Every structure is written in structure tokens, then in C-alpha cells.
């Protein structure tokens, strides 16, 4: 079974997201779809999923040709998609989500028993430890992603499309997913895999198509290609990362945690010195997100959080902000983005007061700040007025980062939860550069959580490994390698941590 | 299932007025000022004779009215005075009340099943106002001029008043030009409707209202448009006998007449009629018919009604 896309074009108003893309994916092939943020990958995939109809071009699945698909047609044609922005229904259970739209029923009555059994089987196959009756909205991002994948697999598809499926997964699940993908490939599925992580491309893909600005830039077999070749095909050459800031042991800690406990985490003690970048690494649900959010003030907490030596006494995010903390949350859609507000509002909302004069917004300064931001982060399009939802996933992430690193707010502690999720190679580099700069020039303390060991190694001066809400190991200096991180979380049996 | 006979049930709850410790008063249009007026007098009277007055809250909804009456009947409130929103719709309740031995007094009309009634013809009120206005039009405008009506088409009592008012007027003053017939029962609506009509017919002479509230709004619209308060060629009249309107009449403005309900008499009847029934009076003997009187400047009734409000 082959998936063949010819001359696919789609524009939103004046934005040409796709300008005549050709793509062929054979059965038994894993095809990597690559490209910078906003290149048009998700748009192509949404057209395949029937989220909207293309302006022109055809889609051919197993010999049938379509000018446009609806979600039903797409499903019936055997296409299963894991969307970048999850298509799960928060308040329904895991089972209900997996079978939504394809419920098994007998005489009109949903066959719950059988559905649960199948759901469990699918999740086991993915190495996912998810309660099938839990409401999806209460799950951590990573688990939600696994549910989404299970949902796609439940349909016994002939074509499987994955749009950045590992963005919130940790090693365990990534490995299980990769095994599953390779098994499905052997079963003869045509698989399209979108990712910004080159390691995945190397491990999985047989061929790749690279999009640039809505057009096919390169389409080639990966046989005999090195990582350098791949990078050359997708990325523009980028500048060097600035060096690490010198960390003076004599400096008083910029961020200090003492006996910090929050919902399901702690107690945690931690000192982060000015200019220091500390990573949090762990498996899904190990408590990184909760730790970061608790430090920020999102949850009720015990113990002390001090910034610059002064304990933060005011509660809530406003308390954190007033003390100089800033948070880039992990769940972009729910916690970060104002989808219908303009890009400028999204990037500058907390800064507008500081930029205003006599309580009146100063548009000129706002525009200038925004322009320098889009410049340094390479936000595309660089439009101040376009609503945030019109930006690609990676560009949305840049807007959120920009909210705190625009130079207007006196941020001295930067808290980042998965700071580069969905961000392309170039921009990822750019974000590292900006974070490093903030750390060194402003002497800020940075605490970030990540599921990508490569990222931790690149960015962090020191890494805390978390498990069940506790810090179980600290790795720093030359010991901080990807292997060391993997080893720290790869335990044959989970360490017993008394709760 | 309900007995259709109108003869008294044998097992009466109240054998005499002494047994009536409580009277249920059910009036659906609680937003109207008339309601507050009648209740005020009924309460005073109830206190005098030593009975409780229980009120309902129907919010102007016939189904709520029916269920509230069902509640009173189930509770065996010995006497019920009810103003049906739709008369025919309450025959069942009236019959049920009577077969439970309760006294049922119909307010504002009559039912087949009832112990007695308190009546005041709505049509009559409208007719009195319409005729007076027509007479005035003949005398002061030579029967030629422009008139606008503020009416109510939505409920039975409104339609009766409207019909009485308009029929009487158009019959007696056929040459008057009717330039408006708009739904309005409150001053706010009355004001904006007449204002709009005045934009088209600045020479509007007369406004007749289904309620004094609506007419009061019409009066305001005319004044706002620059009409002198005692303009000789202008006539506004309403119905109910609201204090504000009566005071304008007394002052000698062009608000010239109101078909006034005599709220004190009605309020008293709400208590007295059921008690009379309890004492064995027949429908005909117990029932009260409270006349509607048209009050105008100089009438002694005008001062009397105003004084009742004090």
C-alpha cells in the first residue's frame, strides 16, 4: 500500500503553507518528513487527516485518488495520524479516547470490557504505564502522547503518520515507540515520521523528504547518509554557542530551595548560583514539571524558595514573578498560548505594563521589543498582528520563550519546562544561545526540565535526575554525558523511594 | 373526575368564617403595581379580621400558577382567591378545591366551578376611558385629530381592556385618525413607543393606555417633545389608578383621566368574600362586583383614592 501526494498546495489567506508538494511513501518504508519550523509539515499532515481540504493537488492511497479528504474518509482509507497538537478529549477516559469515533458495540451498546482489554494491550505494547480509566486531562503530557499513539494504532492502519510523536516522551517510551514503528514497518505499513530529532531519523528512517517554505527541498534515500548530510539538507549553518558562564562558588545562590515539597514531590534542596544552568531529567511523571511549577508558585508548597537570598513569601505566580522568577510552561496549548490573541500580545503580555507610559501602552516600544525578539529567535512569520494559532508549533514555542526573555522584565530565575519542544534544529540552537546569554550576562539562574538527554548535555552545567518526585542523582561536569543520563534512569527495578 | 356540580361539597373544611384561619391569594402578575396595592389593602383587612394571608409567586407563568394552586389545595388552605391567567385553564383546580371542601373565589372574572367571585369588568374600564376620550375629542378637537393606543395583546385581561377602550373610542369618534397601536404596559416602553410615533406625527393629540404606567410613559414623551403640561389640545388617559397618574390628573395636566380600580375595596373583598362564603352565603350573595370608575380632575373620588395611598 502506497501513499502518494502530488502537487499539494494550501494557503491560509495570504500565507502559502504548501506550494505543490510531492511525496511518495511505499509500504514497508519509514519516511522521515523534515524541515524547519513553519516549513509546512503539519499542514501536509492535516490535509491527509482531512482537517481541511487542500487548494489543489491529489492524495492517493492504495490506488484511490482523492482531491480532498474528510476525517472519516481518511480513517476509512486506512490513514492513522498522531497529530502534533493532540486530538484528545480531556474529560473522557483513556479507553473512550482510544476508541472515539470507532467504538466497539454490540446491539448499540458500547462493549466496554473488550475495549478496555484492547486498550491495555496497545498501551503495554508501547511500554506505557497508563491507567485505562484515568481521565486524559489528568495525565502528564508524555502519557497523553502515548494515548494518542495507542489511538492511532487501534485502527489497524495501512498508513501511519506521526507528527513529532516523541516531543514529550522520555527514553523508555521512545525506545518502545521506535520498536513498535520498526515492527509495523516490517508488517508492511507505510510510515511517515515527522521529527526535529536527528537521532530518530538515523535510527528509523529509510528515506527522507525535507520541506523548506512549503516546497520539497530534498527528497532522498538515507542509505549511506551521515548525520552531517542530514543536517546539511535541513539546517542553515548556525553560529557557535556562547561559552558557559563562569560559576563562582563564592557567589550566594540566586535560587535556593530548602525542603521544598509540593503535590507529590519533595523534599528538595537545591542551590543554583548566578549564571548557572541546571537541568532536571527523568522519566515521564518523575515530577520535573511539578517541581518547576511548584518553585514558580503554581501549587501550594512547603519549605522555602529564596531568590537572591530573599525568601519568596507571596503566594501564587504573582509572588514568583515579583521575586524575579519566570516560567515557560510545558503544556503550550493549555498553560501558555493565547491562541486568538496576536503574536505581540502573546510575547509581551507581562511586559506591557513595564513598557507603558502613565498606564498607557506604548506601541512604539512594544513593536520595537517584539521586532528584536522575532529577530533573535527567528520567529516566522515575523508578524505582530497574526493570531498565535496561525503559527506553527515551533514558532509558538518561540513566542512563549519570548514572553520572558524579551529583556524588559527583571527576570533573575528562569524556569523552563521542555523549552525546545517542537523546535527545529536551528531555532533550538538559537534558544540555547539565548538561554546561555541570559545566564551569563544577567547572571540569572536557569532551571529547566527536559526529556532529551542531548539537550541536557548541551545546555546544563549540572543535572538533577528525578524519580517519583525526588532528586535521586546529581551529575555535573565531565560526568554529564548522554550515557550517564540514560544509565541513571535505566534501572532494572525501580528504586524504592519511601514516600 | 372533578364534580361538575356547583353546589357546595358536604364535607366543608370551613363551617363558618371562624374556621377560616388562612386565605390563599394567588395573583399571577406580581410585577404590576396594582398587585402591590391590592395586597397592601388585603393584608390590612386580613389583620383586622384575624386571618393569615398566604401569597403565591407565579412569575406570570400559567403553569406555575396551576402548580402553586395545586399546592394550596393539597395543603387544604380553607379559602383560595385566585386571578386566573387563563380562566378556562383553572376550572380543574377550582373543581378540585371545591371537592376538597375548600372555598374557591375567582378574582377578575367567573368560573363554572366557584364558591363566589370578585369581579370588575376589564372591558368596562376600557370602555369608560374610550368614551370619555371620544367625548373630549369631539368637544376639543372637533372630532378630528390623531390618537395612539398603548395596548396589551398578550394576556386575556389585557385584550379585554384593549377591546373595550378601542371599540368605544373608535365608535364614538370615527373621524379620529389612529396613528399607532403598540404593545406597552410599563412607562419605559410607553415612553419610547410614543416618542417614535411623535417623530412621525408631531401633532399627535391623544394617547390612551392599557395601564396608567404605559400612559404615564406616553405623557412623558409628549412633555419631552415640548408639549406644555396643560396643553388644551392634548389628552392622555390610562387605567388602574396609579398614584403618579392620579397626581398628574389632580394637578390639571393633559393627563386627564384614569379608569381607576378601587384597590381598597378590592383588597377588602379578597378577605371578605371568602369569609362570607364560609358563613354560608351563596355565590350570588357573597360575590362582590367592584365598580371601575373613571376619575378626572375635580372628582371627589380622585382625592379619596389618592388618600388611600398615604
Amino acid at each position, binding site marked *: 500500500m502506497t501513499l502518494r501526494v502530488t502537487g499539494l498546495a494550501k494557503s491560509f489567506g495570504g500565507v502559502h503553507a504548501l506550494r505543490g508538494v510531492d511525496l511518495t511513501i511505499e509500504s514497508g518504508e519509514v519516511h522521515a518528513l523534515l524541515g524547519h519550523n513553519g516549513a509546512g509539515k503539519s499542514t501536509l499532515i492535516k490535509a491527509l*487527516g482531512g*482537517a481541511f481540504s487542500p487548494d489543489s493537488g491529489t492524495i492517493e492511497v492504495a490506488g484511490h485518488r482523492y482531491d480532498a479528504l474528510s*476525517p*472519516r474518509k481518511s*480513517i476509512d482509507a486506512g490513514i492513522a*495520524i498522531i*497529530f502534533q497538537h*493532540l*486530538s*484528545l*478529549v*480531556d*474529560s*473522557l477516559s483513556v479507553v*473512550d479516547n482510544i476508541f*472515539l*469515533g470507532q*467504538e466497539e*458495540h454490540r446491539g*448499540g*451498546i*458500547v462493549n466496554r470490557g473488550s475495549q478496555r482489554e484492547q486498550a491495555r494491550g496497545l498501551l503495554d505494547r508501547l511500554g506505557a504505564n497508563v491507567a485505562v480509566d*484515568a481521565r486524559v486531562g*489528568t495525565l502528564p503530557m508524555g502519557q497523553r502522547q502515548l494515548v494518542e499513539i495507542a489511538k492511532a494504532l487501534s485502527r489497524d492502519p495501512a498508513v501511519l503518520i506521526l507528527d513529532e510523536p516523541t516531543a514529550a516522551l522520555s527514553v523508555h517510551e521512545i525506545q518502545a515507540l521506535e520498536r513498535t514503528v520498526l515492527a509495523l514497518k516490517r508488517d508492511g505499513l507505510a510510515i511517515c515520521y515527522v521529527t526535529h530529532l536527528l537521532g530518530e531519523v538515523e535510527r528509523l528512517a529509510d528515506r527522507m523528504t525535507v520541506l523548506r517554505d512549503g516546497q520539497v527541498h530534498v527528497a532522498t534515500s538515507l542509505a549511506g547518509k551521515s548525520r552531517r548530510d542530514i543536517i546539511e539538507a535541513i539546517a542553515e549553518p548556525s553560529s557557535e554557542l556562547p561559552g558557559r558562564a563562569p560559576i563562582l562558588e563564592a557567589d550566594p545562590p540566586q535560587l535556593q530551595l530548602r525542603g521544598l515539597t509540593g*503535590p507529590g514531590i519533595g523534599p528538595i534542596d537545591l542551590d543554583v548560583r548566578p549564571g548557572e544552568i541546571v537541568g532536571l531529567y527523568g522519566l515521564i511523571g518523575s515530577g520535573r514539571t511539578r517541581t518547576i511549577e511548584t518553585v514558580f508558585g*503554581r*501549587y*501550594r508548597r512547603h519549605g522555602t524558595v529564596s531568590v537572591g537570598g530573599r525568601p519568596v513569601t507571596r503566594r*501564587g505566580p504573582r509572588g514568583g514573578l515579583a521575586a524575579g522568577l519566570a516560567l515557560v510552561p510545558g503544556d503550550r496549548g493549555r498553560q501558555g498560548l493565547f491562541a486568538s490573541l496576536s503574536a505581540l500580545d502573546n510575547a509581551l503580555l507581562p511586559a506591557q505594563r513595564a513598557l507603558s507610559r502613565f498606564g498607557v501602552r506604548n506601541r512604539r516600544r512594544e513593536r520595537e521589543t517584539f521586532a528584536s525578539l522575532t529577530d533573535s529567535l527567528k520567529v516566522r512569520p515575523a508578524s505582530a498582528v497574526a493570531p498565535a494559532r496561525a503559527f506553527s508549533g515551533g514558532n509558538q514555542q518561540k513566542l512563549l520563550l519570548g514572553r520572558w526573555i524579551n529583556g524588559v522584565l527583571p527576570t533573575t530565575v528562569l524556569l523552563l519546562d521542555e523549552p525546545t519542544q517542537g523546535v527545529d534544529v536551528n531555532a533550538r540552537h538559537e534558544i540555547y544561545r539565548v538561554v546561555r546569554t541570559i545566564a551569563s550576562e544577567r547572571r540569572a539562574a536557569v532551571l529547566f526540565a527536559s526529556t532529551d538527554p542531548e539537550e541536557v548535555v548541551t545546555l546544563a552545567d549540572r543535572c538533577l535526575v528525578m524519580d517519583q518526585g525526588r532528586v535521586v542523582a546529581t551529575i555535573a561536569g565531565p560526568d554529564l554525558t548522554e550515557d550517564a543520563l540514560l544509565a541513571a534512569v535505566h534501572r532494572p527495578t525501580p528504586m524504592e523511594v519511601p514516600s | *373526575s372533578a364534580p361538575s356540580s356547583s353546589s357546595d361539597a358536604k364535607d366543608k373544611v370551613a363551617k363558618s368564617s371562624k374556621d377560616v384561619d*388562612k386565605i390563599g391569594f394567588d395573583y399571577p402578575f406580581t410585577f404590576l403595581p396594582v398587585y402591590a396595592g391590592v*395586597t397592601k389593602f388585603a393584608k390590612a383587612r386580613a389583620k383586622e379580621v384575624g386571618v393569615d394571608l*398566604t*401569597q*403565591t*409567586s407565579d412569575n*406570570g*407563568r*400559567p*403553569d*406555575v400558577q*396551576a*402548580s402553586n394552586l*395545586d*399546592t394550596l389545595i*393539597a*395543603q387544604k388552605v380553607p379559602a383560595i382567591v385566585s386571578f386566573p*391567567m*387563563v*380562566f*378556562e*385553564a*383553572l*376550572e*380543574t383546580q377550582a373543581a378540585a378545591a371545591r371537592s376538597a371542601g375548600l372555598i374557591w373565589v375567582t378574582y377578575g372574572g367567573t368560573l363554572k366551578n366557584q364558591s363566589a367571585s370578585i369581579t370588575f369588568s376589564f372591558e368596562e374600564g376600557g370602555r369608560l376611558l374610550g368614551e370619555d376620550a371620544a367625548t373630549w375629542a369631539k368637544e376639543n378637537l372637533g372630532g378630528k385629530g390623531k390618537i395612539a393606543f398603548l395596548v396589551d*395583546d*398578550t*394576556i*386575556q385581561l389585557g*385584550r379585554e381592556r384593549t377591546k373595550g377602550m378601542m371599540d368605544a373610542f373608535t365608535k364614538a369618534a370615527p373621524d379620529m385618525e389612529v396613528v399607532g397601536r403598540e404593545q406597552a404596559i410599563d412607562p419605559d416602553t410607553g415612553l419610547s413607543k410614543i416618542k417614535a410615533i411623535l417623530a412621525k406625527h408631531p401633532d399627535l393629540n391623544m394617547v390612551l393606555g392599557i395601564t396608567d404606567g404605559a400612559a404615564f410613559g406616553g405623557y412623558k414623551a409628549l412633555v419631552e417633545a415640548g408639549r406644555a403640561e396643560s396643553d388644551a389640545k392634548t389628552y392622555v388617559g390610562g387605567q388602574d389608578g396609579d398614584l403618579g397618574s392620579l397626581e398628574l390628573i389632580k394637578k390639571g395636566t393633559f393627563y386627564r383621566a384614569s379608569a381607576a380600580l378601587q384597590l381598597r375595596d378590592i383588597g377588602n373583598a379578597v378577605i371578605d368574600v371568602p369569609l362570607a362564603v364560609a358563613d354560608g352565603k351563596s355565590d350570588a350573595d357573597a360575590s362582590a362586583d367592584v365598580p371601575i370608575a373613571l376619575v378626572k380632575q375635580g372628582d371627589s373620588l380622585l382625592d379619596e383614592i389618592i388618600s388611600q395611598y398615604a
Partner: protein
Amino acid sequence: MSTPQSVRQLARYPLIPVIIVMAIAFEASTGSFVGQQNLLGIATDSATLAIVAVPTAMLVISGYLDLSVGSTYALGAVAAGWLASEHNGSMLGCVLLALLAGVAVGAVNGLLCCGLGLSPFIVTLGTLTAVRGIAQQLAPLPQTGFSESFAWLGGSKVAGLPSPVIIAILVVLVAGFVLVATPLGRHIYAIGVSREAAYLSGVRVRMVPFGLFLLTGALAALAGAIKASVLGAVQSGTAGLGFELAVLTAVLVGGVALAGGSGSLVGVVLGVAFLGILQNGLTLLGVPTFWQQVAQGVALIVAAGLAYLSPRLEAMTAPRPEAPKPVPVPA
């Protein structure tokens, strides 16, 4: 933690203890609350509310709204009343005509809201206004003198229960079954939570709410016809006036979220019962009119407060220490 099942149910449906307390209070202070006649009276009066609250709740769960039910009720009453009085129509004919009228209104609402995607609030406020005008135009004068057959619709009893109560029970059971046990039920919730996600999963995101609009229209008109039969008269200007607010109140007090995606019919039935008992009790107590309004307003707020307490109580009585929800954004 071994909180018994029943206590957890109470935490889930906090209206249950409230209704019990109300019942005890009303019985204690009036001595005539508990009694077959009074309770059956409440049930009969609440039946029409329940018949319309159920489909409306389903519509709200799917993320839509229908304000036009008050006027559709009037139209159904007028249509049935016309056939029953002018043409001595049979019960079946009257009911069918009312249903037809209701389906027509529902189709207009559904086409505009689901087909074109117009705002349900404005559209159904529009039909609320327009359909009332049409009903009054069709029957400016009160209708009475209905056929024997039609009178049977609201006046008969089956197994000791008045027919409106029987109809309401059927509506609740069938709808409850659909919501809980069928794929369609899952789809209704899914659409209410996330149209986009449901759409991408292949759910018929237009047809399902369209069907619910038809159902709501049909049952609103049926309720109007039933009430016409019970009362034996129809006045087009006042029939069902303000009914839409009563329906929506019952639905929301019953725990259905206006934003869609959550709620249960058990809650809705409790909401209907709560309103019916409140109305009844205040009349029994002989509270003066204006104070009754104040009490009703306060009761609504208390009911809203229970919805606030409920998840907290539920969390406290949860059977096993499950991953607790994150502390919600305050307020």
C-alpha cells in the same frame, strides 16, 4: 480509606442531601409536604420541565444551547390545541402535529447553529422571539374545549402515575441509556469538550448536535401539548413564557456545565426535583411573594455553591489515593 459507596454518591450529587433537608424542613414546618397528593402534584408539575430539560442537557453537553424552548412549547401547545378544539382532533393527531411543529423549529435552529455555525445564543434567542410571535399570530385568543381524546394525554393515569410523569420517566430512561451506554453518548460528550478533536476522530460533529436540536424542539413542543391537555386551555401569549430559563436553570443546577462536555442526567433530574420542591415548599410555607423571589434566588446560589463543594467532597471521599487533580487556577 473506606468511605462507603453511598457517602461518595452524596458527595457526587450534593443536591441529594439538600433535597432531603428541604423535604424534612418543609414537612416539619408545614406538616403537609410528605403526602401522596402533594408529592404526586410536584411530580406532575415537574414532568414537563424534565421532558425538556433532558434533551436540553444533552444539547448543552454537546456544547450548544437552545433558548427557544419556551416559545416552541407555546407553538406545540397552540398546534395541539388548535387541532383538539377546532377539529376535535384525536390525541395521536394532536401529538403528531405538535411534534412536527417542534421539529420544524429545531430544524431551523439546527441548520443555523450546526450547519452554518452561527452563535446558538443569538440564533435561539431569535427563534424564541419569532416563534412566540408566530404562536400568538396563529392563536391570538385562548383555545379551550378540547376533544376528549386529547384530554387523555395529560389527564390519565397508568399504574397510579399521571401520564406526564410516565412520559418524563420514559424520556429520562431512554436518554440516560443513550448517554451512558451507546457510542452516540460518548460522541455527545466528546463534541462538547473538543469539537476539533472529535472531528478529527471521525465523529459527526454536525449531525449529532443537529439531531439534538430536533429532539429538543420536538420534546419542547410535546411538553407544551401535554401542559395544554393538563390545563385544558392554551393562551399563546403566556404559555411557556420564561420556560427556557427554568429549563436552563434545572440543567445547570443539575451540574451540567454551560461550556459543554460534562454533566449527567441524574444531576438534571435532581435539578428538576430541586426546583419543583423549592417552588412547592415556598408556597406551602406561605412566604410572601417578594420574599419567595429572594429565596429562590438564594437557593440557586446555594445550588451553585454545592457544585463548588462537590469535587472537593468527592476528592475527600475518593476510594483510593488516585493522582489528585492539580490545584485549579483559583476561582
